[in-house]
């Protein structure tokens, strides 16, 4: 667990991309109701309150109980109306929402604008949520958080039509749509949670029994039972606004590991789960199963500390480029992922709309070119086959977290292949928690490291790449720009992408600049983006997963008898 960043994953918990099996329902088939969908997971859920969710299992289950205002197109991530539809004012500051007239809670009460306000108040009052920053730019937010106001002045519910509401921001912030109206801001039932939002009951929401046993639902399923550590059982919501689901029950089942999960998919004890590349051939050989393959919104990379004083070679762009040419990532994808992945040369995975279409250096495997670049950087090859400058060998360490086989293998391959271009790598393995500590606090022991990023629906790269996110041990400042890479043009592109013109086309331009700088400067060897391998029974119909959502049309799924 938590080998990738966990929290940012939540926005697109089931996030997929690329080619899939497509819709499998033949036109003459008539959907029938019934059956049970059983999803396998390695860890239990932690909560069913979307405000407190910070892990993938909880988000997977909670997302089926509380619907969100919009949903993401599974293939391209484009936002589409769901519980609500919206317009944005010309100054990009006000979002006007109208909730679907058919949208009701499972107990028959309508979903209203007040329910959105309740969700925000719950976040504001919780001491344990990590979602507060999503709303900090809403007018009146801070006053409410500080107890100076009884409501959030920027959120206005239409008195004539309770289904309509507007949200005003104090400044333009492009990720606002995803962050402030996404899964952690789905409407929450005021008639259930309203009692926790009254003044003077700070953190009452953190102890609410409904966090572990939700009583009403706006999503396709309603909560039935949580058998702790074993299974979570949901039943269909007969009042779901898009029509009651065809599949009667959804079960979230805990299993020990990937091997057990694959075995249980084969026996039918599970009928929904993602498998590892090594199990793919076995799964595809099963008559009763089918596999959907699509790019995940994540990547595994080798990072370089570009400010390292102990490994100064990494400060030189030419050396970093040489390290890109000198590692055969296509072969790595073939051997580690059995071909189920894509080589990456910049930050945004190709499936994301923010990824540049063309114009990136692909860094094809080329040992000669790699050595040329190293020579250009002033290094000469010694008798031992290792390049050196001023008597110092071209040498650095790369650390990976022990126990993660993919990363351990990548480290092994990188060490061998870099040796072939005259670069000496000292491979190291450390516990994940130790690595997290060293990376986020800017410990300068770190020269190179292998880890992964899971990206969300919102492509804003500020938290990972902006210069303000460089950890500074002296100031006890933590951050995720571990390698300390920055330049002014780069910062500017990131800033413009989040608070300039928010149209997708304009943002895409800024992210093109951003990705091209990364592609040229190579502060990471960007590694690869794996495919999600989703396995379901052959007779499951209407499922149509993609990079950005696997379950967007869950209510339409059915089992052919």
């Amino acid at each position, binding site marked *: 667990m938590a080998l990738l960043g966990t929290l940012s994953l939540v926005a697109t918990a089931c996030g997929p991309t690329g080619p899939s099996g497509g819709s499998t329902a033949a036109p003459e088939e008539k959907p029938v109701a019934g059956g049970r969908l059983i999803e396998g997971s390695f860890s239990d859920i932690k909560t069913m309150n979307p405000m407190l969710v*910070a892990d993938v299992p909880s988000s997977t289950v909670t997302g089926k109980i509380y619907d969100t205002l919009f949903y993401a197109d599974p293939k391209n991530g484009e936002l589409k109306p769901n519980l609500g539809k919206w317009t944005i004012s010309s100054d990009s500051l006000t979002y006007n929402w109208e909730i679907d007239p058919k949208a009701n809670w499972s107990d028959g009460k309508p979903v209203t604008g007040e329910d959105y306000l309740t969700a925000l108040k719950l976040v504001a009052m919780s001491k344990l949520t*990590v979602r507060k920053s999503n709303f900090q730019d809403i007018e009146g937010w801070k006053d409410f958080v500080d107890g100076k106001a009884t409501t959030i002045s920027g959120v206005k519910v239409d008195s004539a039509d309770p289904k309509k509401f507007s949200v005003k921001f104090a400044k333009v912030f492009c990720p606002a749509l995803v962050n402030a109206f996404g899964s952690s801001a789905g409407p929450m039932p005021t008639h259930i949670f309203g009692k926790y939002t009254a003044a003077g009951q700070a953190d009452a929401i953190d102890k609410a029994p409904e966090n572990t046993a939700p009583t009403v639902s706006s999503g396709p399923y309603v909560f039935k039972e949580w*058998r702790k550590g074993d299974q979570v059982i949901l039943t269909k919501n007969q009042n779901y606004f898009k029509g009651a689901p065809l599949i009667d*029950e959804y079960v979230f089942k805990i299993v*020990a590991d990937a091997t057990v999960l694959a075995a249980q998919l084969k026996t039918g004890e599970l009928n929904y789960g993602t498998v590892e590349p090594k199990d793919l051939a076995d799964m595809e050989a099963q008559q009763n199963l089918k596999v959907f393959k699509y790019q995940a919104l994540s990547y595994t990379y080798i990072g370089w500390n570009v400010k390292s004083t102990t490994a100064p070679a990494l400060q030189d762009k030419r050396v970093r480029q040489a390290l890109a040419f000198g590692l055969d990532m296509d072969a790595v994808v073939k051997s580690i992922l059995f071909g189920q992945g894509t080589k990456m040369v910049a930050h945004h995975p190709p499936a994301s709309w923010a990824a540049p279409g063309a114009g990136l250096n692909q860094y094809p495997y080329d040992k000669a070119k790699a050595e040329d670049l190293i020579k250009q950087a002033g290094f000469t090859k010694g008798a031992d086959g290792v390049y050196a400058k001023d008597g110092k060998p071209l040498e650095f360490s790369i650390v990976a977290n022990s126990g993660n086989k993919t990363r351990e293998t990548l480290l092994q391959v990188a060490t061998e292949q870099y040796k072939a271009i005259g670069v000496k790598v000292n491979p190291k393995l450390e516990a994940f928690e130790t690595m997290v500590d060293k990376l986020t*606090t800017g410990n300068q022991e770190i020269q190179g490291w292998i880890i992964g990023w899971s990206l969300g629906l919102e492509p804003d790269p500020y*938290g990972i790449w902006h210069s303000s996110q460089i950890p500074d041990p002296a100031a006890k400042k933590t951050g995720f720009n571990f390698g300390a890479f920055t330049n002014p043009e780069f910062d500017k592109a990131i800033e413009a992408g989040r608070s300039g013109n928010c149209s997708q086309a304009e943002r895409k331009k800024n992210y093109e600049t951003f990705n091209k700088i990364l592609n040229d400067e190579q502060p990471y060897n960007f590694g690869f983006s794996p495919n999600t391998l989703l396995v379901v029974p052959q007779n499951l119909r209407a499922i149509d997963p993609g990079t950005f959502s696997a379950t967007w049309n869950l209510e339409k799924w059915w089992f052919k008898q």
Partner: protein
Amino acid sequence: MRTYVIRRLLYAIPTLVAIATITFLITRLAPGDPIRLFTFGATDLTREDIEALRAAHGLDKSLPEQFALYIVNAAQLKFGNSILYHKDAMSLVLERLPNTITLAVSALVLQLIIGVPLGVIAAVNRGKWIDNAVRFFGVVGHAVPAFWFGLMLIIIFSVTLRWLPSQGVLTVGKDVWDIGDRLKHLIMPAFVLALAGIANYSRYLRTETLDVIRQDYIRTAEAKGLGSKTVFMVHALRNALIPVVTALGGVLAFLISGALVIEQVFTWPGVGQFTYAAARQKDYPVITAGVMLGGMLLVLSYLIRDIAYAVVDPRIKVK
């Protein structure tokens, strides 16, 4: 006897304080910061959010301050909110306790109903093939690593024969009161957990029985003309069992700690599995609650053992 129990309970206090202190030190001094781990990759969080979370869990205070608060709270059985679950850590651990107790008690029953007869049969048939077989099993059963044995059983009975479920406590779709289904889930983990104990008891009982049947009073009983069955069941076995009964307390503690590994292998949702998962995520409150619960059970089971010992064997005087 009452004073004895009270005194023993008082003795338990320094033990528990020591366990609490060691747990605190090990968790805090081991590398890794729970809040940084919890928020790792959460790129949309501000530093203020992260620090507020740290403060909400009291982790912003100095280590001595944290320790003082921790001891005061632990004395009231309060261990704080789980970082991952946002809920009181002790109540989370207690929710899993019934599953662990079920597993441990089942294993104990298996140890007794299999281990004791095996030992007796071996003793009665001393030197014959059956005795050798039991003695061989006594060594192997004790030496086989439980997790490996568990995996072997899964491969045989779940994967190949498909007779028994390999994971969890209940089949999806079964009612919580479906005892038959629960037993099917219980049988493999309970047997694996019991294995070492079965082996031990069989060796123990064999030695004890051999010892007892050589005693004078057995010869006397036989001389009185009692049937060999009566001699064995009434005189021999009863005496041979005394040390076994007194050993039970410690066994229960052993079973609860041993359940940690077995729970992992069979995804058995008990205290061990839960505490282990918490340790991996550095969820301090859950780790300490889990360890303290284990510590309390240990102390309690030793207390029960000592009382049982005093009751069974009057020669043991309470001092």
